[in-house]
């Protein structure tokens, strides 16, 4: 059974983000990269399947810069068997990334039985790549999964919908699943795992190798900006009992017209 896990490397959540001077992206030179936290659920799910099916092979894929390979190394230290990296700029759009992932899967020569990914990356929050990839491969897909069962070629997943309700889907492999928090508890990469990961194979491709060109770009970033600073909070003085009614009306009015919450 061939399981592919797509991971993205994102800035650590404590990173202070600064846009580049031309506004095309953010400054990446001093960023500490981590594996996208939602992708950790995907890696863990793949490893859980591998635990009960020793014939399963887990390949982790990533499209992005080669300067740091943190995310792929972490996944292999957690227990993935091998990795493939497509070298690309870190500000590629979802369409190009999905196409590159499709190309990378084909390059490995392994027929995918299951493709897992995080439901979204915490940097651009686009929530697109798994679905676009499934469409390109002509495979069924479900996103935001919080439950997973595998029996032969049949997959049963639970998907979170608004209000805390769950939808249950039955699919057959091969399929693409995008994982949400709550699916499992990702393991730590153990120290012996870190040592072993050094010897695991990591294939490297260029965008050209996997059939992606500049013409595939659907989105061009023109201006990254920091959000405007929050205006200071308003204080209301209701200590004078005679004026309380007036103050309450004022607050309610502002909640309607300014904050627009009621």
């Amino acid at each position, binding site marked *: 059974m061939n399981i592919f896990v797509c991971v993205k490397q994102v800035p650590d959540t404590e990173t202070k983000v600064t846009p580049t001077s031309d506004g095309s992206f953010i400054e990446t030179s001093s960023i500490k990269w981590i594996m996208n936290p939602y992708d950790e659920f995907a890696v863990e799910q793949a490893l859980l399947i591998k635990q009960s099916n020793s014939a399963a092979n887990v390949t982790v894929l990533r499209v992005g810069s080669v300067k740091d390979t943190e995310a792929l190394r972490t996944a292999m230290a957690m227990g993935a068997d091998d990795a493939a990296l497509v070298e690309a700029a870190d500000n590629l759009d979802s369409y190009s990334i999905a196409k590159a992932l499709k190309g990378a899967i084909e390059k490995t020569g392994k027929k995918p039985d299951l493709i897992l990914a995080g439901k979204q990356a915490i940097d651009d929050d686009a929530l697109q790549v798994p679905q676009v990839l499934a469409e390109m491969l002509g495979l069924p897909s479900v996103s935001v999964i919080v439950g997973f069962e595998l029996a032969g070629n049949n997959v049963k997943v639970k998907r979170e919908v608004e209000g805390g309700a769950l939808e249950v889907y039955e699919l057959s492999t091969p399929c693409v699943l995008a994982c949400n928090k709550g699916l499992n508890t990702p393991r*730590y*990469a153990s120290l012996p795992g870190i040592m072993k990961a050094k010897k695991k194979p990591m294939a490297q491709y260029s965008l050209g190798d996997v059939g992606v060109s500049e013409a595939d770009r659907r989105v061009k970033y023109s201006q990254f900006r920091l959000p405007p600073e929050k205006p200071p909070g308003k204080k209301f003085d209701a200590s004078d009992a005679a004026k309380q009614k007036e103050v309450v009306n004022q607050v309610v009015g502002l909640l309607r017209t300014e904050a627009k919450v009621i």
Partner: protein
Amino acid sequence: MDFALTTEQREIRELAMKFARNEMIPLSQSYDEAGKFPIDVFKKAWELGLVNTCIPLEFGGSGFKAVDGVIISEALAYGCMGMNTSFMANDLALLPIVLGGSNEQKKKFLTPFTQEFKIASFCLTEPSNGSDAGGIRTQIKDGGDHWVLNGEKMWITNAGYADLFVVYGTINPDLKHKGISAIVVDPKSPGIEVGKKEDKMGHRSSDTRGVRFNNVKVPKENMLGNPGEGWAIAMSTLDHSRPLVASSALGGAQRALDLSIQYAKERVQFGVPIAKHEAIQFMIAEMGMKVEAARLLTYKAAWLCDQGVRNTEVASYAKAFASDSCMQITTDAVQIYGGYGYSKEYPVEKLMRDAKLIQIYEGTSQIQRLVMARELLK
């Protein structure tokens, strides 16, 4: 010269820091308050290979170097100095076997620690012999086909949970240092009385007790080296363990520095964050300078071990400087936090209490200076 960590060392640190942040910091205060032994955290750390880092590859260990060991211990002490004392005590007890044991002894005593979660204690200090370790009174007598152990040990870390003791005693007190010998003792042997848990100022989650040996029979093959070689084994153990203890002080100091920076940026007095006041800036600068200097000394002391070079002098510099700095830095952290710092609602008072012990155990700051002077003036 290269001050950079390898990719692998960065990954090791990453993992240990992640463990410290997720598994240790959230429990550190409540375990301290209750004096609860962190056996669950200890076991998790063992599962990830974060403890017993001194066991060589050929006996089932991960084959870490001394530098890797201090990187891990620094991170775990960042999580909790008290819990790290329990974890580190395993290495302290296993090191005499690594350094002074025969291959059979290493296989017999070290390998089980790599296969199962086990706890060990190093039994050197006695009620009347702390800094004067050469004056040990615990007796090891030849009982024919076994050794007979009699005496009392004090301040023994992990004693209430230990699966193995390494005990220092003397075959003849008149021989002074030359009579000291080290033996491996099964804590379940008849004649061993483990005392009550000490109620300490800091490191409250670590289990510290007295242990009494009454005519305890120990197999002949459990002696490390020959009778009378214990002192040399203890001294070379200290050369390896002092960088580890220094790294624990370093981790605690780094935590105090990080917390101080965070608080100084948040706390507003006279209309600006206190980090804008020069008085606070100078304290933070002093902390940063000491943390960095302690780190360089600690890593160098461990690196010398890895080069197979005698590191006694630098190991003492590292241990004394890191622990004295940790005391100063954690005290200043409480000062920066002001009244809040003195309250148990905030994490810095615990750091200050924990720092004190590192100036005392594994050779006091004064003993370290004695060692340095002897090395410098010989």
